[in-house]
């Protein structure tokens, strides 16, 4: 009897042949869905290129990138985005000058000296800051910061390179703080205690031990923050002033690439030169942010990023 039940059990198991097969199918379905992100990424590249390339029948890639005149609606039109690229790089650079110190110092404060109570208030505040819609920050810069700047520095317009950088800094600080804080917090306790035991002060420990140990995470944070500033659209659209010129001062209006795309796409005739030129601008913007992201990826390779701050 015993052997009979064993046999039937074996029979039952072997007749359940479909089970592993079903498992395989399920696994395959999940794999297919998981490749969705790659497919989307590929489609983005494909359609950007398909819609952007035709402009190079009108103008050479060299002329497009290094041409200093952007008059897409003149006759004959000029499609040179050099001033737009410079504007994007400048707002990113100036905003980084503000956001990097602010973000990293805040991260150090949160991870090293804040009491748990303070940490529990400030960390969510920073996370909430990250979720503030960019159009709201742009609106704030436009309606409140611009008049202040205009009065304070006696400017023709408060919508300029400096204002845009300031608002962009607001947008990238949360990214920088959040990722740096994760990195700093992850430094092993032993390292810190060893440094204290040698008589170092807390500051010396931070400068000589904690920062070197978490530098790859901090660098990742900084680059992702810069990438965010570079690609941010609404803020530069509303606050940067919109002049497609290479600025000569910090208070000149500028027109970064995302602003140009967002502002002109609605008016560009469908599949006209202007339309293709805007997609080509998108390709340039995409490539620059891609480089930032790849660098960040490389640096963080040793250090696995946790948390949603990058997103």
């Amino acid at each position, binding site marked *: 009897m015993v052997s009979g039940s064993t046999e039937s059990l074996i029979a039952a198991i072997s007749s359940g042949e479909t089970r592993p097969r079903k498992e395989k199918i399920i696994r395959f379905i999940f794999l297919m869905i998981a490749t969705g992100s790659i497919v989307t990424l590929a489609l983005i590249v494909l359609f950007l290129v398909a819609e952007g390339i035709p402009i190079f029948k009108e103008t050479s890639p060299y002329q497009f990138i290094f041409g200093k005149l952007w008059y897409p609606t003149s006759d004959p039109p000029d499609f040179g985005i050099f001033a737009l690229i410079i504007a994007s790089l400048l707002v990113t650079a100036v905003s980084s000058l503000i956001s990097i110190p602010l973000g990293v110092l805040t991260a150090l404060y949160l991870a090293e000296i804040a009491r748990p109570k303070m940490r529990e208030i400030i960390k969510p505040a920073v996370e909430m800051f990250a979720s503030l819609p960019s159009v709201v920050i742009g609106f704030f810069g436009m309606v409140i910061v611009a008049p202040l700047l205009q009065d304070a520095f006696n400017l023709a317009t408060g919508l300029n390179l400096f204002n845009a950088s300031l608002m962009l800094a607001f947008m990238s600080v949360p990214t920088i703080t959040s990722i740096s804080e994760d990195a700093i917090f992850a430094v092993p306790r032993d390292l810190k205690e060893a440094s204290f035991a040698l008589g170092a002060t807390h500051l010396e420990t931070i400068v000589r031990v904690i920062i070197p140990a978490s530098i790859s995470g901090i660098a990742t944070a900084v680059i992702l923050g810069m990438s965010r500033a570079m690609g941010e659209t609404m803020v530069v659209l509303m606050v940067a002033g919109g002049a497609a010129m290479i600025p000569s001062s910090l208070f000149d209006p500028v027109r970064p690439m995302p602003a140009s795309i967002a502002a002109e*796409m609605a008016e560009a005739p469908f599949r006209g030169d202007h339309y293709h030129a805007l997609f080509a601008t998108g390709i340039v913007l995409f490539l620059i942010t891609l480089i930032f992201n790849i660098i960040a990826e490389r640096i963080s390779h040793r250090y696995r990023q*946790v948390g949603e701050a990058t997103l």
Partner: protein
Amino acid sequence: MKASEFSSISDSRKRRKAMEFIVFLFFRISALICSFGLVIIVGFIAVKGLSSITWTFLTQPPVKMMTEGGILPCIMGTIYLSLGAILIAVPIGVASAVYLTEYAAPGRLLRAIRLGINNLAGIPSVIFGLFGLAFFVIYLGMGVSILAGACTLSALTLPVVISSTEEALRAVPQTYREASLGLGATKWQTIYRVVLPSALPGILTGTILGLGRAAGETAPIMFTAAVFFTPSLPSSIFDEVMALPYHIYVLATAGTEIEKTRPLQFGTALVLIMLVLGLNLVAIIYRSKLRRRK
């Protein structure tokens, strides 16, 4: 050691401590600026916008060339768009995360998928707008519509959903899986009956975060879904809509009477902030509760 040496050591210690105090002051000031930035922006808009928010404002469409009236179509449009985006992004995102955490073996494929997700997360929002225009609106023929906007937004929220779901799945103790497999359950049964239910609160948090993200985005919907003005509420997913973020932008930059409609702009901005921050607050509080429980 002589007494003088001792005192010089303690002198230097004092100096170093003073230095530390000064530098730490900078740390504190930075943190203060960061947290006050939020308070200042939200505070300003709340103070200026609160008086605009009336029952009429929330329940009526705009009238007189959008210089008076309410923002109901924008609120509804934003709700449709963000819900639509989440409806698409959550199934795909959760399934991707399940593959990444439960099935995938380390290797080239896994690295490629991860690279795809990370790069998707880093793409500027205006590029999503261009993509949506070229692919959903034109190539797939959806036109400027809720559907095209929701699809575009879903591509953007996908990485948010994937990363929070992954975090939730990783937090499920390995012993749960082993116990289930030990009882003879298959891998799929284990995922479906054990892993996903225990990860559900975390997945929900990610969904709420994604919803907030989708509701606040402007650039992706500018060319794919949003319009200046529609006289009526949308009746199908192929209609174009008004949306809160786009409405703020339009009123503040291209309206007929920019100065006159300031109160409406502040009011709309406040509604959007409350919506997005409200969603995020719920998610953050919920998540910190979950994390503490572990």
